């Protein structure tokens, strides 16, 4: 057997007393794809940093092609052909595709002057190597996420990459884009390039992987050929518990009608949508990208103004196209992209929760700060947000905890109906299950919950009923217990 490209042997790393990695060891052979799975905080990022030479392990050995490395630094790692593609791709949005691809290579050549011809050549060659065609002169900021990722892969390839580490490679991609990516990975493997996928969402890349390594709390808990794993067993290893989710308890027939939507219409977005939501019901709205599900979600909260139609809550009509009125009527909305739409990232956790309650704690124009903060702390506890310091900026929290903060903000206003758009996008498996638990308990308290999602297992395990949207129209209204995932997927697409 040939020497492995990278060998890790009992690598240990502690940060101020906390063990981030505990004697982790595995190896990657040339042309091999390895899945490194683990939840947030399992030590994945630390491992990437150690391989990239950014962090030094406290103990343990790292060998490249059988040669044990002393102390690594980013330059040595890069010279050994280890390239990390970060989740944000680390590209230069203002520069062209060609320049982005060739930038590291040119820096590596020690070039002082720009060699436009060589830059173009490098870019064309590497793009051809993975068999994709992206205009060389386009500015990277104008590309789609999938294309940006390909440019990042090309940049790694342009500098003699032998191991490409991809951090959360599929989070932002559509299903079709994931398939294109997998094809490219197959080509790279055939070229002898090794790939290390690092993610908490790995089921989709399993098919191109030879090996799976699972980390939990800094320790390796499972390792084996990829064929031994499936989505369920990965989840079990990552979380250390079975997360087989139970469908929600059936709704009592006597549950009162809470919200009624009639003939909601906006040309080009959704047409003549009508449905009812009962107290304690979790209603799923599913559809492919572009089916109008997001526009509908926004319309329910007044962020998008429908041309006609009616929304009534508790028998009272809710003004359309007015988020403030919708919030006062008791509708809450948790946006899909909580980073840009839902949170004040640089402000503290407490401020983020209490921002919606300023009015309630005002006494003739003066803010009762103590009461406001006590209430926010209470919600942090009730939704079990793991925050070491409630005064820390929300940005410092993990995805799952950020989502809880958004929920806490709405819960503090005691809404009647909560519209959750993509409630578990970008959170890890364990947090996802907990968010689903929160949804169930909200419904049990008599709230109406609308879950907008294209994550079908999520829809099926949290909702009583699913509305299927296609081209702006609700085409199906199915009790969730009566349809399988495959059948539902078929309905979405047909």
């Amino acid at each position, binding site marked *: 057997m040939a020497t492995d490209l990278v060998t890790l042997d009992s690598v240990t790393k502690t940060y101020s007393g906390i063990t981030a990695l505990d004697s982790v060891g595995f190896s990657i052979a040339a042309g091999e794809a390895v899945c490194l799975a683990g939840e947030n905080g399992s030590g994945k990022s630390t491992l990437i940093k150690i391989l990239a030479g950014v962090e030094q392990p406290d103990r343990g050995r790292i060998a490249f092609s059988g040669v044990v490395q002393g102390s690594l630094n980013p330059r040595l790692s890069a010279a050994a052909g280890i390239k990390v593609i970060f989740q944000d791709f680390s590209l230069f949005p203002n520069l062209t595709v060609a320049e982005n691809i060739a930038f590291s290579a040119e*820096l590596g050549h020690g070039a002082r*002057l720009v060699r436009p011809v060589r830059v173009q050549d490098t870019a064309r060659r590497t793009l051809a190597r993975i068999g994709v065609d992206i205009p060389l002169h386009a500015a990277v900021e104008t590309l789609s996420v999938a294309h940006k990722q390909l440019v990042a892969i090309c940049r790694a390839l342009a500098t003699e990459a032998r191991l490409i580490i991809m951090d959360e490679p599929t989070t932002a991609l559509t299903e079709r884009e994931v398939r294109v990516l997998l094809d490219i990975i197959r080509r790279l493997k055939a070229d002898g390039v090794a790939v290390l996928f690092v993610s908490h969402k790995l089921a989709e890349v399993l098919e191109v992987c030879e090996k799976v390594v699972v980390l939990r709390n800094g320790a390796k808990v499972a390792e084996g050929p990829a064929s031994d794993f499936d989505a369920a067993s990965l989840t079990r290893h990552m979380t250390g518990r079975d997360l087989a989710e139970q469908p929600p308890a059936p709704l009592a027939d006597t549950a009162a009608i809470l919200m009624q939507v009639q003939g909601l219409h906006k040309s080009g977005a959704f047409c003549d949508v009508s449905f009812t939501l009962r107290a304690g019901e979790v209603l799923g709205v599913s559809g492919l990208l572009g089916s109008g599900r997001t526009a509908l979600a926004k319309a329910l909260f007044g962020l998008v103004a429908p041309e006609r139609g009616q929304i009534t809550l508790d028998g009272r009509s809710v003004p359309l196209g007015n988020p403030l009125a919708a919030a006062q009527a008791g509708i809450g909305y948790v946006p899909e992209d909580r980073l840009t739409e839902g949170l004040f990232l640089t402000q503290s956790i407490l401020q983020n929760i209490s921002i919606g309650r300023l009015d309630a704690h005002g006494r003739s124009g003066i803010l009762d700060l103590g009461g406001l903060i006590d209430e926010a702390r209470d919600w942090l506890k009730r939704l079990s947000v793991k925050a070491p310091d409630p005064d820390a900026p929300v940005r410092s929290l993990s995805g799952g905890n950020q989502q809880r903060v958004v929920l806490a903000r709405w819960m503090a206003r005691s809404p009647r109906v909560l519209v959750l758009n993509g409630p578990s996008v970008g959170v890890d498996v364990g947090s996802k299950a907990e968010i689903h638990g929160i949804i169930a308990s909200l419904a049990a308290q008599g709230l109406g919950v609308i879950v907008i999602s294209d994550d079908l297992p999520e829809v099926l395990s949290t909702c009583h009923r699913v509305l299927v949207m296609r081209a702006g129209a609700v085409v199906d209204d199915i009790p969730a217990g009566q349809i399988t995932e495959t059948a539902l997927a078929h309905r979405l697409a047909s």
Partner: protein
Amino acid sequence: MTTLWTRNETLVALVIVAFCVLAAFSDPGFLSIATLTDLSRGGIVLGIFAVGALIVLISGGIDVSFTAIAAFTMYVTAMVLNAVMPWMPWWAALMMGMGIGACLGAINGVLIAVMGLPTLIVTLGTLSVFRGFMLTFIGQKQITTLPPGMREFGRMMVLRGENADGSFYSLHAAFLVTVLAVVLTWVILHRTMLGRQIFAIGGSVESARRIGINVRGVQFFVYVYVGVLAGLAGIIHASMARVANPFDLVGLELSVIAAVVLGGARLAGGHGTLTGTVLGVALIVLVRNSLIVLGIPSTWQSVAIGVLILIGTGLPAWQAKRAAARAA
């Protein structure tokens, strides 16, 4: 090409043409070599400043201290040369200006690149410190007798001629310095890896760090380079005005940045062209010089320039926003 019409450069160029047509109608004498040389003369110092401001904006920073660097440099150079080395030739005065400018720029560079402080705050601080230091410790009196080298430079012309009506026109030699500064900066920005790294840092500092760009080194270069240009502009300003007035120049910095932004550079960094910068400067000089020709009171200048900035930067931003809204 559709992008051509949404670019700031096109817009600014069109406004310039419209302005010239308007001016030519109200004063047939407007379209003459004399006007052109007047405008060129007006753009010399502004142009050098603008090139410096552009390179900082591209790197993702902002520098408001360059006018203070220029004033400090011209005053100290004139004073030192008068006192110690009056025999120094004109080019030595320029070199000395660049040297002092580089030192002051390096102070910005240390604070920004090495210590990692925010650029606006640092340069607001140094603007005040450089100016205050000069006025307190060096002097407040105008130096009306410049050293012979600077006087000689002040009289150098590359072009001289007589109009039909018997008046004279001339193009100052310093115009060539501005041209040289533009060309040199273009070469740095577009033909050296250093220049591409400046763009890269302006695009994303984090990404630049990750692929191994020496961010501190590049930033340090940028602020020193701006200092050099500012020092140069200071000497040229004093030589052409034939007086070193310590109260001159400071106050111009926002107009300069406005000219650069008008030419399409983005305050967020990573974007900007020299063509746009030159056009932006041309437009601002044109407005300053020719509103008088058009018989509009000079107090309207600042209103006109302000409106141009609002339209020139607002329109493309608005278009971009509309395009984004349509795409969503």
